[in-house]
């Protein structure tokens, strides 16, 4: 048999009908995750056609984007940013009742950002196809699942038929050799990769991340890497499942138990790319050369090592990006004055991310004039962090400890920066106005974010880590 890639195997296993020259393939979807922002029009479409949800048991909803991260008042009223946000959440609550879908809602101890909570409950498993009306669905590829974002029309397609009309993408292997240095994280790795292949470098491709440095990543780190595949234009990012994957999943609520678990693991072991399989394109990255990295412009492909000079603008558009960011070509990002620090999001809102930020903040203070927001990715992350006392570390340092949600990553719930403010953010997009009109975003790891909060300037976390090691 022809050697196949992980992507080939996932694709082949979900073909209800193969694609032809005149029609796309019909691809079966194992798990459909739903949130309040991209689903209401799809449910309306089902209602207008008198359709049911074909597989409510393969559909899982959560509340994350429009939800406030401040607690309810004494009367239990949640501080929604707008009436529309509140109505949108109420609409999803009504839709899941009407169509019989599980919701990790306000009363659930499992509620969280869709790409944090889904894996936590074990809904995300190797070998699956997973979609959501959300481009960061690529996150779930960390488990060896083919996971990608879709639009609202397609949300309707999956609700009604559990299928999508799809043509197969091309495959891009990114081999990461060597090992990441101390203080250099999965976030720095993916920023470096996007900076290398470019913001459109993955358009038309599904990426598979392979190599020694990828194998060494924890599941949470793998999710950080796959999460940002879309920032290079790739709809999906994949990492082959291995012992790290199985150990992380075992015992979670929605994964198979007992003998069924053993059978599932045996099947998952067959998923990794066969020796000699063909990729349409391959790129090699040397992990040991990567430094803590940040963005300097207005898209996630404008990446630079923290101490390296910001590159000169190649054209008027890049110059406009530098002007918007108020950064100067030839100067490094380290030292740029910071107004706001945001730790959270589906990229870096998991327990290990909060532990990393806390390791810098412990016994230190957020600099005067800097506002720092720490937003756990889910209720589970919040509980785990509070059990370790991380919330006390953040509060003692002067940071705000919030309730779970997308928060300032997409800034549609009222958590936003003011015009002109510079935000060091652990999220995934630094587009103009993404974190508030006129706000300037610098994407960074939780370590860089915490170090920058303490310094009041974009800062290298290794300076703080060295002090600790010396003490």
């Amino acid at each position, binding site marked *: 048999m022809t050697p196949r890639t992980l992507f080939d195997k996932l694709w082949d296993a979900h073909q209800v009908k193969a694609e032809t020259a005149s029609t796309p393939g019909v691809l079966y979807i194992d798990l459909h995750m739903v949130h309040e922002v991209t689903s209401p029009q799809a449910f309306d479409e089902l209602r207008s056609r008198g359709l049911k949800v074909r597989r409510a048991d393969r559909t899982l909803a959560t509340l994350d984007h429009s939800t406030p991260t401040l607690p309810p008042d004494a009367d239990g009223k949640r501080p929604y940013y707008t009436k529309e946000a509140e109505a949108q959440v109420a609409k999803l609550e009504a839709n899941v009742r009407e169509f019989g879908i599980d919701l990790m809602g306000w009363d659930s101890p499992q509620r969280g950002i869709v790409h944090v909570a889904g894996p936590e409950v074990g809904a995300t498993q190797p070998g699956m196809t997973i979609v959501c009306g959300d481009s960061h669905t690529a996150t779930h590829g960390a488990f060896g699942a083919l996971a990608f974002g879709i639009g609202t*029309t397609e949300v309707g*397609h999956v609700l009604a*038929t559990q*299928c999508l009309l799809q043509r197969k993408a091309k495959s891009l292997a990114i081999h990461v050799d060597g090992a990441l240095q101390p203080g250099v994280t999965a976030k720095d790795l993916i920023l470096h990769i996007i900076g290398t292949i470019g913001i*459109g470098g993955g358009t038309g491709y599904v990426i598979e991340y392979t190599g020694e440095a990828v194998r060494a990543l924890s599941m949470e780190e793998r999710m950080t890497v796959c999460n940002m595949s879309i920032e290079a234009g790739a709809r999906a990012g994949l990492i082959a499942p291995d012992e790290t994957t199985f150990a992380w999943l075992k015992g979670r609520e929605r994964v198979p138990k007992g003998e069924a678990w053993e059978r599932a693991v045996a099947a998952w072991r067959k998923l990794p790319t066969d020796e000699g399989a063909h990729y349409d394109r391959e790129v090699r990255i040397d992990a040991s050369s990567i430094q803590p990295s940040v963005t300097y412009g207005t*898209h996630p492909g404008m990446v630079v090592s923290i101490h390296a000079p910001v590159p000169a603008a190649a054209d008027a558009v890049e110059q406009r990006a530098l002007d918007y960011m108020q950064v100067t070509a030839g100067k490094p990002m380290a030292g740029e004055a910071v107004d706001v620090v945001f730790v959270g999001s589906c990229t870096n809102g998991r327990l290990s991310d909060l532990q990393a930020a806390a390791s810098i903040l412990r016994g230190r203070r957020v600099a005067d004039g800097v506002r720092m927001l720490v937003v756990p990715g889910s209720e589970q992350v919040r509980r785990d962090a509070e059990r370790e006392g991380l919330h006390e570390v953040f509060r003692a340092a002067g940071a705000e400890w919030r309730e779970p949600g997308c928060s300032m990553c997409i800034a549609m719930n009222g958590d936003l920066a003011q015009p002109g403010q510079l935000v060091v953010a652990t999220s995934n997009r630094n587009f103009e*106005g*993404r974190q508030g009109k006129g706000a300037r975003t610098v994407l960074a790891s939780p370590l860089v974010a915490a170090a920058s909060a303490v310094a009041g300037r974009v800062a290298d976390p290794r300076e703080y880590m060295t002090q600790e090691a010396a003490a």
Partner: protein
Amino acid sequence: MSQTSQPLTYVHSRTAVLRNENIDTDRIIPARFLTTTERTGLGKHCFEDWRYAADGSDDPAFPLNQPAARDCSILVAGHNFGCGSSREHAPWALLDYGIKAVISSEIADIFRGNSLKNGLLAIVLSEAEHRWLLDNPGVELRIDVAESTIRLPDGGTIRFELDAFSRHCLLNGVDQLGFLLQQQDAIAAYETLVEKAA
């Protein structure tokens, strides 16, 4: 879906040009307008943070506010249009604004798929063809969906790639959900096969 049931055969218009590369979907429709539960009415917020001055009036510096660009239904945009968020609100906003076709040298995958499902033509041209259109704003084009061609003012034509299924759906107003619903038997057979194997 039912919104695409209007057949689209030709788009005939002068072009409006946004030269910027990497125009992301946050730029097309900022996230704060995503709390809507409707598909309609987003046109007034299309390019919101780019097109209005601080006092809410039209910013004359925004290229689409220039008199020659008004009422154009073909948008020629810089490389990698529609990157970022998967929000279908982006093509909804463009359509509601009056855009019927977007042309670039690269268009992000999710945005392109969303657009075609809503009857917004998303056309990728070679760099040279794209460069010429960027450098000649306001030219009158006639886009023929059936032929997959763009007729230039001098009578020349440019061919573009449009997959057969998308073309069929656009020309006939065919609704893709209807097509999928016709596959129910195959879907049920697949489910039986897979669940038996598990």
